[in-house]
């Protein structure tokens, strides 16, 4: 799990540098600070299980096992990217491995996840779908319709609300009349609010919910409470957060917390961690080189893949 969190962190830090060097364009939404949520949840999934993701989706993608080189190439807009350069940061998907896609529309993944889980129920394939969404999806109609339908149809889905405190500059407590993680009873399902920066707790609670779904006992709603250390996008320099708040959350950084716990428990040594860091660094360098060396798409691609 440390490796996964580290891969997410370093992937995004590297993308930010490349972006500021004008090597990529468009939107970049950083997941830095929230890595424990995707990592803990996806560690509890089986290979072949499904996820739906969000516009802040790099972490879900990597935690579900995506290749860093194909992700980086997509951010660069190259043919070798996951979407051949047609999707970009907000639309990376790897359907073959169960990642049903990041999504540029807040809340829209909720009904899609219910549909994927409905398909699993129909096929009796034993798979579970995890629906990642942000706290800012809490006020959308798609959230309500999707969560309600998932419960009514009793499909194997787990709803994971990642509360990173803000939807752009709007605080979650302003936008949501009640916390998303308190709403389970309204939809006839268990729900809980957990520490989203503690990867062990996320894993443990997700495992319970995923097992429950897989056993046909229905959906669960989990709110992972975390923090978006960076701005809404790479271009966010608005002063809606004070330094004290940011510092408080950086002190709870999920990766640093993991290290402290692992070292104290003597589960890992500094050398172990360094070896993983080195390995991640090499993968990141390779991904960047792969992206930079990859060809741009040609114009004949514009009207390709609109239809089968």
């Amino acid at each position, binding site marked *: 799990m440390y490796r996964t969190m580290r891969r997410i962190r370093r992937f995004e830090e590297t993308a930010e540098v490349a972006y500021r060097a004008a090597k990529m364009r468009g939107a970049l939404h950083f997941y830095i600070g929230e890595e424990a949520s995707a990592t803990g949840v996806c560690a509890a999934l089986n290979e072949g299980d499904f996820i739906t993701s969000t516009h802040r989706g790099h972490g879900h993608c990597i935690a579900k096992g995506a290749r860093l080189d194909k992700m980086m190439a997509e951010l660069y807009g190259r043919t070798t990217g996951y979407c051949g350069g047609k999707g970009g940061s907000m639309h990376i998907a790897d359907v073959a491995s169960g990642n049903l896609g990041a999504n540029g529309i807040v809340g829209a993944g909720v009904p899609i996840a219910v*549909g994927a889980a409905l*398909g699993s129920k129909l096929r009796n394939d034993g798979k579970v779908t995890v629906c990642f969404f942000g706290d800012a999806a809490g006020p959308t109609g798609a959230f309500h319709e999707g969560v309600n339908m998932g419960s009514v149809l009793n499909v194997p889905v787990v709803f994971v609300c990642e509360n990173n405190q803000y939807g752009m500059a709007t605080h979650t407590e302003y936008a949501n009349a009640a916390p998303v993680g308190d709403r389970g009873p309204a939809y006839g399902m268990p729900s809980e609010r957990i520490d989203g920066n503690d990867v062990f707790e996320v894993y443990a609670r997700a495992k319970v919910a995923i097992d429950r779904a897989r056993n046909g006992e229905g959906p669960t709603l989990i709110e992972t409470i975390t923090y978006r250390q960076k701005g809404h996008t790479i271009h966010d320099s608005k002063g809606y957060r004070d330094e004290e708040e940011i510092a408080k959350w950086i002190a709870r950084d999920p990766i640093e917390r993991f290290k402290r716990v692992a070292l104290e428990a003597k589960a890992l040594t500094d050398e172990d961690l360094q070896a993983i860091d080195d390995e991640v660094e090499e993968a990141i360098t390779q991904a960047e080189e792969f992206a930079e060396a990859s060809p741009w798409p040609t114009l004949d691609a514009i009207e390709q893949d609109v239809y089968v």
Partner: protein
Amino acid sequence: MAVTSAPDAPAQAATRQIFMSQALHEALDEEMARDPNVFVMGEEVGIWGGAYNVTAGLLEKWGEARIIDTPISEAAIGGAAVGAAVTGCRPVAEFMYSDFMGIAMDQIVNQAAKNRYMFGGAAKLPITYRAPFGAGTGNAAQHTQSLEAWFAHVPGLKVVTCSSPHDAKGLLKSSIREDNVVVFFEHKAIYSMRGPVPEDEYTIPLGLADVKREGSDVSVVTYARQVHYALEAAEQLAGEGIDVEVVDVRTLYPLDVDTILASVNKTNHAVVVYEAARFGGFGAEIASQIQEHGFDDLDAPVLRVAGSHSPIPFSEPLEKGAIPDPERIAAAIRESLQGSR
């Protein structure tokens, strides 16, 4: 309502006369038998049997795993179809009225239509969204619209209409087998129209128009219920010595421009008829295609007969006045031919 339909089934094949709603029912039933990945979901499709009885009896036959009654949640219906399709199912999702699709527009337009493209071709979405549309039933402004142009304008969607039981069955079967997203519009005023449908299995490919009546003087290009009004106008005008050809485009996207142009090449006159509000309607696209590609064949401007620029009103005379009828179609045909005969 006149129980008429063009003789669009081969004469030698054994046929029976059935309602359009029955033809659609048969299409669903046969495709469910053919492919276990096909399932039906929507509001009141199960116990109630569908607002227009299309799914009546399917719950009893196929069970609640494949005939799924949903809550009133159009966004969730639209989106669940996406999730199910992308993971290997072949959903037929019904919107009780096409007017309700507004609630599901994000799922249809931003998700279903774009997933394959955004993902670089790595996803396949074999979805059929069925939706009753059209006026003439006294259901007032929120249950009568013709919104087909909205969907035909979105790359990634195919849009299909039907004007007879024969076409309805063959086109719905093809739509369900499509590996693309199809929005399938059924005009609610003709569900109870009867017509010949072959006993044997058949399909009708998408993207093919059908000449419902051959004629030499003017081409009326239309679809869905207006095909019948155009045929009525053609019968009226036959008495005046005017020979009208009626082209039913059936599929709006992809549009069979060749068949339309071939007809105009023969008649040199075109009248486009559609029930939706005239301004910005799908008929404007048909008219534009004709003038772009068939300008030299035209002896007169392409005329349009279409709905008023208003919501559909409730009161019967108002509703009738707000949409095309045979008399107005006949008048436009006479106008088109004025000066060139």
